[in-house]
């Protein structure tokens, strides 16, 4: 049906609702395949690690896992913004460290109110994004060069801000509570109920409006399956968390940003233009879109989210030191969305991929720590996973190109 025959193929005919279960399965696999693949991967990883060490799937360890992925997940949400326009930001790790240091120094050494110090930290991130975005668009320097220079610069700035001691310990509850607050079972179940109800209402409400307006709508069984899947995931997660310390505030913060950015990218003009710039900057420019403006905003959002992630990481560590934002954080934050289906080539992906990918990477690293593997092995395994993810992306892209033009 690629080459439509004008006499036979009316648009309506092609959009008829699939009736057979097999058709339904095909659509399900096509539409949700990327997410489903990652969820299966997570399940396999969990089972493998649990067979090696039964503590892996204990409530305490899974709660730890969720806490471990919040920083990477938050930074990865921002990274999705620049990946969608086909660019990259190598400075997110250093930016997260610098923003956390600015917050810590203002709060601890200068006695700022914690909320103000947090705002200053995020503003630092936003300013970095603005600078890098302007340099990238004004001078047409490839983004990886601009942000590589940024990586070094902000690492230096981190050392400068921290001063001679090199470490600032956080004790103000306004900051440390972010990563160390847990809500009891009642709150957890209320959260679960509200989340599932809201998801179902939005999904079914949108579906009803589409059907009423007579435009393309996904088949109802598909939506019900999706709602059921979300419900199972949420209920299981809350049950696990409740049997340990409870629902962590950090996880709620991560979910709030994921949902907010998901809405921003899929339901607003800005989000549409983000995808358009990533798909074809020239087409976007000719359509009257301010391509450079979109790019700068994407970089600002990316660095701001890096700052948010850095602040959460500092809150969990109860300190900012010279290695904040260093080691694997950068690579993990970029790899997370790519592992879960966001393309390095721009124009394809989703904010969910940041959360799913961070879970994959977090599970692998948590599991390897639990098994007390040698550092050498951990590095090589992590490297292999990253490479596999990028290869999957490249293969998917070339397959699309092969199928694309008929």
């Amino acid at each position, binding site marked *: *049906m*690629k*080459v*439509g*025959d*004008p006499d036979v*193929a*009316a*648009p309506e005919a*092609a*959009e008829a609702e699939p009736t057979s279960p097999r058709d339904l399965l095909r659509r399900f696999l096509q539409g949700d395949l990327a997410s489903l693949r990652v969820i299966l991967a997570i399940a396999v990883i969990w089972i493998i690690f649990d067979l090696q060490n039964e503590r892996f799937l204990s409530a305490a360890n899974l709660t730890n896992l969720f806490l471990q992925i919040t920083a990477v997940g938050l930074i990865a949400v921002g990274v999705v913004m620049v990946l969608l326009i086909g660019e990259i930001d190598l400075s997110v790790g250093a930016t997260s460290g610098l923003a956390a240091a600015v917050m810590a120094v203002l709060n601890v050494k200068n006695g700022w109110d914690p909320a103000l110090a947090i705002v200053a930290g995020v503003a630092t991130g936003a300013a970095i994004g603005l600078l890098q975005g302007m340099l990238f668009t004004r001078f047409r320097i490839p983004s990886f060069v601009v942000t590589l220079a940024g990586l070094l610069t902000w690492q230096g700035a981190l050392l400068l801000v921290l001063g001679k001691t090199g470490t600032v310990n956080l004790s103000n509850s306004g900051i440390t509570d972010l990563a160390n607050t847990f809500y009891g079972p009642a709150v957890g179940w209320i959260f679960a109920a509200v989340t599932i109800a809201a998801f179902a209402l939005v999904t079914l409400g949108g579906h009803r*409006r*589409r059907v009423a*307006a*007579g*435009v*393309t709508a996904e088949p109802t069984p598909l939506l019900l399956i999706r709602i059921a899947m979300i419900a199972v995931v949420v209920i299981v997660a809350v049950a696990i968390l409740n049997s340990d310390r409870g629902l962590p505030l950090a996880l709620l913060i991560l979910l709030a940003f994921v949902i907010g950015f998901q809405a*921003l990218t899929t*339901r*607003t*003009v*800005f989000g*549409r233009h983000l*995808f*358009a710039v*990533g*798909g*074809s900057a*020239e*087409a*976007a420019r*000719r*359509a*009257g*879109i301010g391509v450079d403006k979109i790019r700068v905003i994407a970089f600002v959002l990316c660095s701001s989210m890096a700052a948010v992630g850095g602040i959460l990481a500092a809150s969990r560590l109860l300190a900012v030191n010279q290695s904040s934002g260093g080691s694997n954080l950068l690579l993990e934050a970029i790899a997370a969305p790519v592992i879960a289906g966001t393309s390095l080539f721009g*124009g*394809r992906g989703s904010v969910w991929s940041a959360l799913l990918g961070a879970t994959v990477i977090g599970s692998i690293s948590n599991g390897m720590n639990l098994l007390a593997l040698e550092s050498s092995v951990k590095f090589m395994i992590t490297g292999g996973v990253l490479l596999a993810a990028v290869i999957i992306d490249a293969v998917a892209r070339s397959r*699309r190109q092969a*199928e*694309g*033009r*008929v």
Partner: protein
Amino acid sequence: MSENGEVLSIKGISKHFGPVHALDGVDLDVRPGEVLALVGDNGAGKSTLVKSISGIHTVDSGEFIFEGQEVSIGSPAAATELGIATVYQDLALCDNLDVVANLFLGQEELVGGAGTAIRALDEIAMEQRSHELLEQLSVTIPSVRSEVGTLSGGQRQQVAVARSLLGEPKVVMLDEPTAALGVVQTKQVLDLIRRLRERNLGVIVISHNLADVFAVADRIFVLRLGRRAGIFDTSNTSEEQVVGAITGASTDTAERERQP
């Protein structure tokens, strides 16, 4: 409308690039509900003429009369504002977006009133209008939610043309709309051009393919070395005459080879 009912009249436009006279006093008229083919050899000035009308180039001299009013076309936005839409050969579509998103790119419809900082896309309204438009034009695509990258060349061309119609233009210019298309797809695009004529638009088609030109055009405008080398009514003209005008040879000695 001007005295003879032209929607667009161009009088004596010239454009120089350094010492090169890309256009030298060209006159051209387009009437509503007519397909005017613009043909000429490589370097004859077709692109320059199209870009002058679409506002990418500013001309050195000459005037544009649009619906009886003298106008100046200083930028692509000015041309669009007047009601002159251009579909370029490279189409400028985003392969990663679906048909609806491409049709409305840069002019998305939003829910809710003005004033809110971040406004949501009105996907339902856009999809309905897309259906309406594509149906009027009898454009055949698998679904308005198909990704444009999965469509055939002819379907992509049709989407690009439909997109140009959203701004309710009076004149549509198509640059090589059938280049690199197969037989079936070419037929679809030519049918689409006929439907543009039925909508009473002035259509300018730039083409190298004389078979397509004779199939769809009412008049053929031949450009040679930046000047008008002839204007023919398709109904009483032979291909040899047009080829003769394109190459500059007289009709009886015209080479029999066709333009590729």
